[in-house]
């Protein structure tokens, strides 16, 4: 089967400092993967480089067998919440509808169909009642759910989510994890940069462990082993954490 996402020999640097070093990864369709690793491991960089948002020193990336630039209509990306200006004067529904912009193309404005779709996706995340709320008045968890709803509006086959559970409330976390499982059930491929090693084991079926280089990649129970984690988080030093 053609992988949903296939990464070969990906190397990315910030100036001279390597951020990702010769990464090879395949993500099967319908897989739910957590990308974990210490701070500065290149987790967010991986997603951005895959999408072509950062220049690559080397490497090729294919989504569903095609170059990324030709597959963007099948991929949704949820950036970290801090990446945007939440003081921008607009409301929740408006942001959710931005997920439909690619299908609309230049100049065409969103109409009743896009509005209905956006409301349906907001409802899936339990925030349809906030549709007319200004985004500056949202809590962190609500902001994150708006972003997830926007990704759903796009109706993609591959989701790339950058720390969607960082600093959110319990309800949002449960909703989001629930959503990931639903999406997987629908055959979607979901890749989540994640920081909480606890929930990885319960929710995800695969894990990728990064620390500039690829440390481990496989079923969650194999990757989330203390010995393997130690290798990524302590660079192989024989110490016990926590």
């Amino acid at each position: 089967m053609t992988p949903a996402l296939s990464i070969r020999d990906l190397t990315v640097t910030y100036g001279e400092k390597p951020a990702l070093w010769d990464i090879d990864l395949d993500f099967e369709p319908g897989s739910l993967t957590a990308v974990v690793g210490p701070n500065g491991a290149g987790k967010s960089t991986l997603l951005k480089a895959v999408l072509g948002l950062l220049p690559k020193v080397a490497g090729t990336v294919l989504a569903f067998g095609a170059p990324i630039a030709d597959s963007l209509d099948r991929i949704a990306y949820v950036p970290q919440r801090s990446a945007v200006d939440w003081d921008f004067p607009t409301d929740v529904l408006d942001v959710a509808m931005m997920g439909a912009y690619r299908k609309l193309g230049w100049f065409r404005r969103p109409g009743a169909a896009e509005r209905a779709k956006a409301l349906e996706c907001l409802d899936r995340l339990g925030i349809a009642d906030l549709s007319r709320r200004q985004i500056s008045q949202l809590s962190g968890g609500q902001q994150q759910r708006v972003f997830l709803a926007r990704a759903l509006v796009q109706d993609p086959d591959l989701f790339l989510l950058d720390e969607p559970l960082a600093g959110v409330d319990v309800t949002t976390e449960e909703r989001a994890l629930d959503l990931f499982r639903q999406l997987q059930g629908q055959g979607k491929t979901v890749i989540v940069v994640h920081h909480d090693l606890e929930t990885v084991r319960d929710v995800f079926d695969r894990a990728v462990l990064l620390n500039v280089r690829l440390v481990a990649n496989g079923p969650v129970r194999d990757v989330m082993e203390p010995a393997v984690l130690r290798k990524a988080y302590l660079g192989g030093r024989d110490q016990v954490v926590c």
Partner: protein
Amino acid sequence: MTGPTIVALVAGLTAAGCALAGVYLVLGRRAMMADAISHSLLPGLVAAYLLAQGPNILAGTLGAVAAGLATVAGVEWLSRGRRLHADSAIGVVFPFMFAVGVLWVSLSFSNLHIDTDAVLFGEIAFAPIERLTWEGRDFGPVALWQSGTLVIINALFLLTLGKELKIVTFDETSADLQGVSPVRVKWALVTVVCLTTVVAFSAVGAVLAVGLLVAPVAVAQLLTRRLPVLFVMSLVVGVGASLAGHLLALAYDVSISGTIAAVMGGLFLAAWTVAPEQGWVAQWASRKRQAAKLKVQTLVVHVAEHRGTQSQSVENTLEHLVDELGWARPEAEKAVRRARDYGWIRLDGPTLELTDQGLSVARSIL
């Protein structure tokens, strides 16, 4: 049309065009770009004057827009990477462009008198005098045509690129992935801002052009957080200040553009002070309320913590609040009075006792 009516129309239309162009400039936090553009037009105007061999509105406009675009390109190029911040780049580029203009004028037109006041302040009072003529027929004041066209162009720009401007300003990365090239949208906006500045510049001068672009939006931002309302309010503030400024200037026989700028400043100060939610007064009152509420909550929690302990009769007294919590006596008295008003606390001799309601408040906090 009488002279003052024409001036009022030109001022109002110019302000409307500026307010429309200014919204995304301010929301994108690029307001100072307008300053750079307005001071860089001179070399473009000079070049156009030489090429067209005399004053020509179309050539002048194109030349000035080109100079504005060159300035923005220079700023963007210099501030790429980490060596120079955008504000420093602006500070380097526009004086250079202005200097090129000034030197070019003194070299090429040594016998021509360039009125520096007109560059900085414009002279809207001359608006009725310069006429658009074609084959001997008079089509009315040039400034009226210019400012009217500006409003139409800017309104059409916002109507066609509304959703693109929105996503690029809010979330550039997602815009890129949604197929809306941020680079194209930004340059379209910069071009419109250049054109707007050129038209505003000839009517009201370089300084007020910036004011008309930025100040109405800044006022409107203090009054609303809804985008459609923000557009309407920016228009109302810009046009309102221009018309009011014009009338005041006529009444007191002072500079029209100066008065418009002063009215705008006054409006901003008023909004900054008394705007319903974001004004200084509202913010101050809300901070006061927060602080008072926090005091009462602290009091209730403190009383709850020592409730039923041996030290209760010592800890839960007004004296103790003053001694141990470090509160001034009037402050402590006020907190106790508030807590009693809320029905959270009652006095048992000198000892503060929680009511049932107070207890549930304390529990909800802890």
